[in-house]
Each structure stands twice: as C-alpha cells, then as structure tokens.
C-alpha cells in the first residue's frame, strides 16, 4: 500500500516535471528558483584537467559551459565525470577518477556538500528511501570487488557497502529493489537484483553477451544485449519477451524507451521501433556522420520528442552536442566541454 502510494506520488511529480519543461501550453507552475531550471544539463566527462557541466536552455538558444565553476569559483567537480543522479532538488554528480560525488542544488548549482570517502571508481547512482545507492567498479583488473555504496543523503557518509559479485554499472530502482547491470564497456551478460530490505544480492539473471544498456519503463525493465531487446518483469525477474536485433546491424547500443518507442544507435545512426514490435527496425531515422570512431554517440538521450547526441570528437578538443527532432531534423548544434557523455532534463 505504502509503495503504491509512493509510486503514485512519483508519477505525479514526474508528470509535473515533464510539464514544466513543456512551457508552451502551461501557465508558469510553482517551480523552484534557479538559473538552470528551464533546460538540459549536459555532463562533460573532461580530460586530465577535470570535467564540467553545461546547460542548454529549453529553447536551444543559450548554452552555458562550466556552470559549476561559474557558481562556485575555485571549485571543481573532479576527474572523469561519469553521471548525475537526483533526489528532489539535489543533484549528485559522480567523478569516477576522483572518487568524488559533488552534491549541488539542481537548479542553482550551488555546492551543498561532497561524498569524498568510501568510493572507488563510482559509476552510477539512484536514491531510494533517503539512501543513495552508488555502483563502484573498484579495481579495474577485477570484477569481484565491485560494490554498491549505500550513502545517507543527509550526512553524505557511506554507511554500508554490498559486494555485487560481478561488474557494477548502471543501477535503477523498482519498488524496494535495485537492478544492477553487471556489464560494462561491451562485456558482460548479467543483471543482479539487490534487495534494499536485506541489502544483499538476491538474484542474478543471465542474458546474452554484450549487454550494454537498460531502462525501466512502464513497469518493465528493458535491456539491450547482442541479441536484441529483452523485456523483463521486475517483480518475477524473468524475461517476458524478446525483440530481436536485425541481422543487418552489426551491433546495437544505447537503448532508450520513450513514448512507447525504442530508440537505439548503431554506428553513427539513430533507429526507432515501437515497443510492440517483434524485431528492431534496421532503417535509421538519421545518420549524423560523425568522424569520431570512439567518440560518436558518447552521449545519447531521447526526451520530449527530441534526440540529444553528444560527440566527443578527438577527446582533445571540446565536444559537440546535436539536438534532432524525432524525425531526424537537426535543431541545434553546440560546442560544449570535453567528451559530453550524458543529458539530464530539468
């Protein structure tokens, strides 16, 4: 009952948030104040001098780079920024090279605190019941020491760590469970379920090799591996359905689910297929013709009928963000920081 209520609340907040960015047809809702309220946060992984966050206004006109340094002079976010997760108006920015999470106000980017101990190559995080759960790769030459750090979001101290037993990468929450992708950098084939009641790994599900992305959508967990998309029931933790990858595409990555559509990439092209399909489409929406082998689709996201692409170029010059319509028309192109790897919508 309690969780059901929470789900309703989350859905409600989510819909408010979505409406907020869609400012055409609504009068100004009651919103938090801040320079970075109306638009998209772009996380730039950075080179050996540290990473940064850029902000793109919702009309795609204005871009501000290094907004954290703008608000907090003489401060930095750390080396190799990996991802951001949120809790209400707090944003948690993970630097995997500095074993650091910077906590900022999501809309003003004022620094609120840091998590600077108990982390070892932190990757992704999620907040559930007042705790942040952050995956850590630990030593690069071992996948047996990867763990989830459980952080009190008030004290910002690591309270407990849970060994995952495999690679710890993406993490999502569903009810009181967390699902952890045990695959990174194109290697690995498992998802683990972590129960927050017992703080232990309760089950592991094996998929095909090359597992690279997963997303929770409409009460289902969708995962993309070398065979295609697997639809997983998060309650029973079993594969319900498989949407196979077309033969013509060598590899498919970056699964996103939005408006009952799968979006994914292959090479330098973006594809879409309805979630009801039996096979993924092999016809691309657009090919953005990047010349960067490793840095193409370094960041990829779909939101509000817009497709966001981050291109890292040669990693030694500033990266590019391109925003496309859902049908593949280029809306804007902006130069951001080094290696833009992810997008977050306010």
């Amino acid at each position: 009952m309690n969780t059901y209520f929470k789900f309703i609340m989350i859905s409600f907040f989510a819909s408010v948030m979505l409406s907020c960015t869609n400012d055409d047809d609504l009068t100004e809702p009651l919103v938090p104040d801040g320079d970075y309220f109306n638009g998209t946060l772009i996380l730039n992984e950075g080179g050996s001098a540290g990473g940064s966050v850029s902000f793109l206004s919702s009309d795609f006109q204005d871009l501000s780079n290094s907004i954290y340094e703008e608000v907090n002079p003489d401060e930095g976010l750390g080396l190799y920024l990996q991802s951001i997760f949120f809790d209400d108006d707090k944003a948690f920015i993970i630097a995997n090279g500095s074993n650091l999470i910077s906590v900022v106000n999501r809309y003003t980017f004022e620094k609120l605190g840091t998590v600077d101990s108990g982390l070892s190559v932190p990757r992704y995080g999620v907040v559930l019941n007042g705790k942040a759960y952050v995956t850590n790769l630990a030593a690069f030459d071992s996948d047996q020491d990867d763990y989830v750090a459980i952080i009190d979001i008030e004290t910002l101290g690591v309270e407990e760590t849970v060994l995952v037993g495999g690679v710890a990468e993406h993490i999502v929450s569903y009810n009181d469970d967390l699902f952890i992708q045990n695959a990174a950098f194109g290697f690995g084939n498992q998802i683990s379920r972590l129960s927050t009641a017992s703080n232990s790994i309760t089950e592991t599900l094996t998929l095909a090799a090359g597992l690279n992305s997963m997303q929770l959508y409409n009460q289902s967990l969708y995962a993309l591996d070398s065979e295609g998309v697997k639809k997983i029931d998060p309650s029973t933790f079993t594969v319900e359905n498989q949407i196979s990858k077309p033969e013509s595409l060598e590899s498919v990555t970056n699964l996103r689910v939005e408006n009952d559509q799968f979006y994914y990439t292959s090479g330098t092209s973006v594809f879409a297929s309805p979630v009801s399909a039996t096979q993924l489409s092999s016809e691309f929406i657009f090919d953005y013709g990047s010349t960067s082998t490793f840095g193409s689709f370094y960041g990829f996201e779909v939101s509000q009928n817009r497709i966001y692409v981050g291109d890292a170029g040669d990693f030694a010059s500033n990266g590019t963000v391109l925003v496309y319509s859902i049908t593949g028309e280029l809306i804007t192109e902006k130069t951001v920081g080094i290696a833009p790897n992810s997008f977050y919508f306010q």
Partner: protein
Amino acid sequence: MKYSLRFCVLACFVTLSGYAQLDSIQRLDEVFVVDRQINRFSTGQLVFTLSSSILRDSPGTLTDVLQQNTPIFFKQNGYGMVSSPAFRGTTAQQTAVVWNGFNINSQFNGQTDFNTLLVDGFDEISVRPGGGSVVYGTGAIGGSIHLTNRLRFDGETNLTFSARIGSFSTYQNLLKASTSNEKWSLSFALSRFSSENDYDWPGTSRQNLNAEFEHYNANLSLARKLNQNNKITYYGMYFDGDRNFSLLFPSDPPSSYLNKDHRHLLEWESEFSEVTSVLKLAFFDEYFEYIPDSRTPSPTGARAQTALARYSLFYSYKDFDFNVLSEYNYSSANGDNVLSESRSIASFALLTKHHWKKLTSEVSFRQEYSDVYESPFLFSGGLNYEFSKNLTTKANISKNFRIPTFNDLYWEGSGRTDLLPETSNQLEASVVFSEVENKHQLSFTGHYNDITNLIRWVPNSTNTWQPENVDAVETYGLEAHLTSRFEWGMHNFNFSSLYAYTISENKQTGFQLTYVPKHKFTNELTYKINRFSVNLQNLYNGEVFTRTNNSPGDILEDYLLWNAGMSFKFPKLQNLKISARVRNIGDVAYQTIENRPMPGRHFFIQTLINF
C-alpha cells in the same frame, strides 16, 4: 655604421631562408670528453653550452635549468611532476637526451621525463637545436640535450660539497670529487634532491597534495691511460627516483611512481697521428613502477634493457675529417602491459667534414636496419662560412627520425609492428655576430621542419586505442640569442637574452599544436664585484592552446616570472660560497598544463664549499 647596417640586412635575409647556430668555445687539449661528435660534427648548427657552475647554481632538475637557458618550452603536471619538452614546436618524443654520446630516451614511451634527471653532478650540458639523428639516432628532431662528464689528467684533486635548503621542505645536496695523475683519472658525484612540494596554489585556497619526491643520482667516471696511444674509460650513472603524483582534487586516488635507471659505458680509444679508433660497449637498464593508488598498492611496472656496441673510426686527411660509425643495438623489454619482446637495430653512418679557407662543409649519412620496422635513409648537410672575425653564417639541412617505441610496438592488445618511424625534413640558417674577444655575441636562427608519419594513439573500429602513423606537422620559427660581458674596473656584468618565435601546425587542420607557445623569451643579468654577485632572471611564456581545435576560450594565459639571487664568497674559508635565491618574485599564479598550478614565490639558501 654602414657595415653594421649591411650586416643587419644580410642577417634578416639569411634568417628568413633558414636556420643557425652558435659555436661553443672549448679547450679540448687537457679535457677528455667521450661525445666526440657534438663538437666536431655540428657544422651549420649552433651549440649552446651550460657550464658546471651554472648547473650547480640552479636549484632543481634538468627542467629548471633548461627552461631558463634554452628556447625549449616545458609542460609540467605541477612542479616536479612529469615534465615534457616542446623543442621548436615538436612533440615530447622529438627531443633526444644524450648521455655521454648515447641516446637515453625511454624505450617505453620514447621520451625523457626532464624531472627525473639531476644535473648538478654533470660537468657540462650542451644543447643543440635542430636535427641530429645521423649521429644520435631516434628523437633528435627538435634538438638534442647532451649530458656530459669530463675527465682530466692534470694531477689535481677537487672536492665540492653543496647543500641547499628551500621552501616546501626542499633539500638538495651534492658531493663531487675528482682526482687524477698522468695515468689515472677518477670523478665521482652523488646528488640528492627531495621536497615535500606542498606549496599553496597561488590565488586559491588549495594546496598541492601528494606531490613529494626524493631523487638520488650517482655518477662515476674512471679512465686509465694504458700507454701513449691507448686509453680505457668507464662511465656509469645510477638514478633512483621516488615520486608521488600531485592530486587535482583532494579525493583523487594518490598515485606514485618509482624509477631506477642505471647506465654503463666502457670505451677503448686508440689514438694515432691521423687515426682514432674508438670501441664502445654500453649497457642500459631502465625500470619503473607505477602505483595507481598507494592505499591499496597494486603496482604495474616494466623493465627495458639495452646492450650496445659501437665502433667508430676518426680519420683526418689534409683538410678532411672523416668519421665512420657502426653500431649494433639490442633491446628487450618485459613487464605488465608490454609483451616480452626484443628488437635489434644495426646502423652505419659516415660523417665527413671539409675545411676550405673560410668555408667548412659537412655531409653525413646514416642507415639503420631493424628487425621490426623499415628505417629511412638519413642525412645531414651543413655549411659554416666565416665572412670575417665578426660574422659567421651557417646553414644546415637534414633528415631525421623517431622510431616506434616498445609501447607503440608491443603494448598488450594494441601495439602494432607495422608502424613506420616518424620522419622530419628540416632546414635552418643562422647568422652569428661576435666581437673579437667574444665578449658579445648575437645570433639569429630561422628554422623550418616538415614532420610526417607522426605516431598518435587513436581508437580503431573495435574501439581499441592503437598507435597509427596519422599526423603531419609543419613547424617554423625564429630564435635570437644574445650574450654580453662588460667590465668596468672591478664591476663585471654578464647579460644573456633569448627569444623564440615558434609556429607548429597540424597540416591537416592548420591548428597550432597544443602546449606550444608562439613566444618565449628569457633574460638574465649577473653583476659581480669582488666576492659578491647578484643575479636577476626573467622568463616569459606566451599563451598556449589546450584544445587541438585551438578554441579561444581554452588557453593557458601567458606569464612573466622573475627570479633573483645573490651570493658571497669567502676565499679564506675554502672558497665557501653562500647564496640565496628567490623564484617567482611576483607570486604569479601560472600553469604549464591545464589545472596544474605551479608554485608561487619561494626561496632557496645554498652553501657551497670547494676543497
């Protein structure tokens, strides 16, 4: 007046079309140096020499000495951390460091970290801008740095002890001893340099963390004259470095780096009236260990060993000097991430020099044969023409190379054995004006360098980073160098000044390479009266781009640093010399690599005693 104007016009012309050099003045009669080519076969090029007194009076490492006294730009990851040179706009692997005639750039990454060499134990450093692969092999593209030990047979015994204390708990000590008689000569130097290196980052509230280091260096040279014609010489150096790498953010994993290198050279020289025969055997061992997180040490390391045999024959016939060189080089490496492999290189070189009236000309060739990669035919041609006692012009043209390193060839899963060496075609010309007594000397050098097949690590189609011969770079520029000496009664003034203008463009994109300043200048003035001397230095580095696409917002700003020192000698107390020095007087906040602040104002006190 008319003459000097004409000289200036001429100077500009020659400078624009090429490249130039300064000759060092050396007394070779009583001093014995094993790098015989640097002085005999540098026609068309300039050689700058830094004496042992400069080396002993400069606090710090090779980086500190060279950035003040040469046009080379160094980028450092914070003071004392990894230091890479850009010599005439070239890459870090394109500067050769030569120890007593042998190239000692790392077998792994092809470069020398200039903060892992202590210089106060050496007797001389020579810097020769421009190509030098014909004699010194790989990497002599931007120029070469020659670390030299000298041996004397003059029967004197010397002992020097120096102790220096500086800000940030910095300590530097040197013990140097030499003795000789008619048959034997022995020289020994032991130096130590350590620092907590915990300086405050100027203009911020932060401090340099995890940057302490402790380095030891030992040099031993020993020679024995067997008879009038034969001499056996041994040179050895040992370096032991223990260094932490400074943190960008306090929560970064604290990493550290250890390196232990030792090098040995044994030489047998037979000297007859017109022929000198020299056989050299050398053994180099380089070892490093990198600890990514010292709290949970899991070091990765590697060792490379090189055995070398070089035979060289010098022959003088009438106005000709010949040198035939043949060399065999066997290197092997093993360690984490690098496959256990070996590489053999055989090389042959012929150097010829001819004197005719006021014209000296030189033509040299080198061909290498390797069991791994194809080597280009290398050459060098030089001319010196002495118009008068006051004016000399020089020109040099050469083809040089940089061979693929063990990392390029054998990195686990990435190395490629089908790489080509980087090659450079270059041209330089100089005009040198000098006053008869050499009290004043002014030189201008123009240089041009076309470098192709640059090796860069790029991701391949399966997203693995691999080395590839992808880039082409064109560099050109101008160097000006002035030295002046005045004496008015008891007052002595020494002034030196250098300026370098450097363009280094990626040929595909037209952008200036990152971390290559277009302008650099340094000045130094020393005033001496009796036992007292004061010294003032400055150093200006122009802005550098930090992004390959030269985006205007991403630069390191230019800076001007001032240093000053004074010293006093007590001749009655064994020539005790006490000196004090302040660096970065203006407390300027500057960086040579993005987000790697360098120290603000800091101090040294030194005592030096000679027996």
